[in-house]
């Protein structure tokens, strides 16, 4: 985002509220309207959303290794 993008702070806050599911419909409308007129903010918003999406997609749930599971049951004194 350029140093001269004076409304960036406001937009960042709006984006964070939207991404954080803390925004109401009015704020989302305001953000959407602004992005239609402002390519820089649209790039910013899209890139932050994309970052989160990439992490969610790659966030494969790991299976627990057998040795870790064995030690867990041993510590808990439980039978598998």
């Amino acid at each position, binding site marked *: 985002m350029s140093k001269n993008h004076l409304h960036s702070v406001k937009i960042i806050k709006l984006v964070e509220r939207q991404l954080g599911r803390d925004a109401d419909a009015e704020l989302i409308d305001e953000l959407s309207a602004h992005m239609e007129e402002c390519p820089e903010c649209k*790039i910013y918003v899209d890139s932050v959303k994309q970052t989160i999406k*990439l992490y969610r997609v790659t966030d494969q749930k*790991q*299976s627990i290794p057998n040795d870790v599971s064995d030690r867990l049951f041993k510590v*808990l004194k439980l039978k*598998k």
Partner: protein
Amino acid sequence: MEEQRTEKQLVADAKNGDQSATASLVQMHSAKIYSLAIRIMQNKEDAEDVLQETFIIMMNKLHTFSGKSSLYTWLYRIASNVAYGKFRDKKHLDPNLSPDEPNFKTMSGHELHHWPDHLDDKLDDEAFRNCLMQALEELPENYRTVFVLRDLENMSTRDTANILEISEANVKVRLMRSRLFLRDQLLNHFKCVERPS
């Protein structure tokens, strides 16, 4: 037979001292808790410690579990607390860290670039996946925990704040900075891989 008992029945039986029910609950949830612990701790040894401590607490405190939330949510809060406690023990993190904490890279003033198209295709690229993980590792723990809980685990701002013993405002600030940090780290990676050799 264990598979015919619902989780609710297993919890009730475990509360009454049924070891096989307790074992079934551990079996049901240990992989998910281990996965959460790995993401927060970023190393297997500490993650295993978190896993073991979480289920030790479960066994000692199961009688206090009211059943208002799912057992996983309850375990998840325990695991998050244990993990964050380890950071506090190791590094004496200040739970009331100022939202204006200095020396943290933000995107403010950074040049904005278009991102490459078809980013999803890059997920097959091991170097790109490593870059994603490396960027997450480079996030300071008190930021990474917020990012994992809020964005990867979809925990609410309030619950995250309660677990980490910080204000909701601080959760929001850390989340914003985490996202910007990760975004910038990935952007640097794109610049490297897109640059002609």
